[in-house]
């Protein structure tokens, strides 16, 4: 290459100076982000898990620290208010029964400790059965298609429109004695359509994806495609759906219990509320009787809701706040 003679006309500086890369930038790892910022450590999810864990711990470990026999009738003095309060008779609460007692002599704290896991159990069992059914039916409908799909879709659409609480009320009022497992089964009867539809929709869309085509091209069998290719991608949806279903099941269960249709032989949170209402606790100003279980239930639902929201944010990055 040779030198080229180029004259610039105006005497003023005609070069374009660009301050290249003089702007300082964050080359280090830190800043607003740090090692702890992975999507899984979502604040809502963590808060929700914390709350639920706390509730579960009360139930599981509580019996180590508190005498659960006090949950049975005539085990304690009657109608005691919680510590620091005075009931309408002027009797003060004691530390022997920190959350008070109710009019059959059951200790509130013991009731909560025994009742909380029971309510959870119902939700988990019902959701579990509903999900299993949902997975099986959803996969069949999505993958096999045709008449099978039509039948399953019809059934699920019909079931969803049935007012489940009403039917459950009727059924359970006919059955005299209900166990937790029975109740769970009944609730599951109405819990399966939603996961079925979800899974069916996901399977339908994944069926058309490039990697399923590739798997076919690689000689994979239909079975293998369903379980090795599609299933693993469904797990986040399954998880989130499970939490949603469990929440719904617990809510239904509590509803039934508070109408007096729940299990009679074991204490449940909803059952305690029912007892309170039927004993006119509101009139007698025994707010701790219906208040304590309600408070615990509120906590449980808030926790489950936060977990659900947290999952939503993880699955859909657009919902995440940009600066945490």
């Amino acid at each position, binding site marked *: 290459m040779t030198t080229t003679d180029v004259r610039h006309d105006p005497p003023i500086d005609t070069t374009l*100076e660009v301050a*290249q890369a003089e702007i300082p*930038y964050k080359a280090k*790892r830190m800043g607003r982000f740090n090692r702890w910022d992975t999507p899984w450590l979502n604040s809502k999810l963590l808060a929700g898990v914390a709350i639920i864990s706390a509730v579960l711990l009360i139930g599981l470990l509580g019996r180590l620290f508190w005498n659960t026999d006090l949950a049975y009738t005539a085990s304690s003095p009657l109608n005691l208010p919680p510590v620091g309060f005075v009931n309408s008779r002027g009797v003060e609460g004691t530390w022997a029964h920190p959350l008070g007692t109710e009019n059959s002599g059951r200790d509130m704290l013991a009731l909560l400790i025994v009742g909380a896991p029971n309510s959870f159990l119902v939700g988990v069992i019902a959701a579990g059965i509903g999900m299993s059914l949902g997975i099986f039916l959803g996969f069949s409908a999505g993958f096999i298609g045709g008449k099978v799909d039509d039948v399953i879709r019809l059934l699920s659409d019909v079931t969803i429109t049935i007012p489940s609480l009403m039917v459950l009320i009727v059924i359970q009022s006919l059955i005299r004695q209900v166990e937790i497992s029975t109740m769970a089964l009944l609730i599951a009867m109405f819990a399966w359509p939603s996961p079925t539809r979800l899974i069916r929709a996901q399977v339908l869309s994944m069926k058309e994806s490039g990697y399923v085509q590739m798997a076919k091209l690689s000689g994979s069998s239909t079975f293998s495609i369903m379980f090795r290719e599609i299933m693993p991608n469904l797990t986040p949806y399954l998880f989130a759906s499970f939490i949603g279903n469990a929440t719904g099941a617990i809510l239904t269960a509590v509803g039934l219990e508070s109408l007096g249709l729940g299990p009679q032989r074991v204490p449940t949170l909803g059952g305690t509320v029912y007892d309170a209402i039927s004993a006119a606790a509101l009139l007698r100003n025994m707010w701790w009787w219906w208040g304590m279980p309600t408070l615990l239930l509120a906590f449980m639902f808030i926790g489950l809701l936060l977990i659900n929201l947290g999952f939503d944010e993880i699955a859909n990055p657009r919902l995440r706040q940009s600066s945490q």
Partner: protein
Amino acid sequence: MIDSTPQRTDAPVLTVRDLCVYYETPKGDVLAVNGISFNLYKGETLGLVGESGCGKSTAAMGILQLVTPPGRIAGGEVILEDRNLLGLNEKALRSIRWAKLALIPQGAMNSLNPTMRVSNQIKDVITAHEGRQDVARLRTRVMELLTMVGLPGRVYDLYPHELSGGMKQRVCIAMAIALNPAVIIADESTSALDVVVQRIVAQTMLKVKQMLGVSMIMIGHDMGLMAQMVDRIAVMYAGKIVEIAPVRSLFSVPKHPYSQMLIESVPSLKERKALKVTEGITHDPRNPPPGCIFQLRCPFVMDKCRTVAPPLQDILPGHQVACHLYETSPDGRLHVADAVGNP
């Protein structure tokens, strides 16, 4: 910091200076656009080319102030008709977008509302900026726009799904010119189309540009299309502009080694030659090497390139290059270095 292209002495319509757009990641900022500057004059089309990851689309978003977190505009100025867009609030920006500065995005046909007729969508754009209009006049105006982009009148009442890809793209062009903006940015606006349709849409854009005197920034990677459509080309690499030249100069005598690589790798329909395999951007965009941004791939790299970043400077009237091969000595003479190429 004056950019002088002796052919144009009028004031530029759009001036971009030292624009920086960075993306935050847990491991540091990605310097997507790292200090680019150029002028856009009235009625001209400036092409912005570069490979994937060079930052050209990000630059467009930066100019339009449409950068969303985790990206942010980290510095620079974007001056449109004497107003610096970087300092304006959202309300002022909204009044400028479409009216003064319009965008034809890639896959624009997917940004049409499928539930609204074409006419209503175009009318929306107009009324959103100009308030309520006389119905008859609005209709005439929309019909005129459709004619300008070569669409038959019956398109007025159609829904987007009833149109072909090329027709939808032309509707998007009509929307972009509806308010007679000063600048239109077309971001890969023909890349999803078939060859013949692409030609039609491109020719429509040229015609429209000529009729309205609009200035355009065309972003793309199809060098053949650039040759047809633009007056000047800016070549970007890894967030920086390495060369700006009139289109003929760039194609016939590309100066920057990267531009040379680019021109050489364009597949031709005239002769079969050996395929030139290139690698893409090789350095970590969070940590560019000190000195010239292109040093890792440059066949003519010198020691100076590893420490000092070459500024973008004039080497010929209207032709700027950021490369140490071309140095202007104090007396105004340009020296082109004898460089030993790296294998």
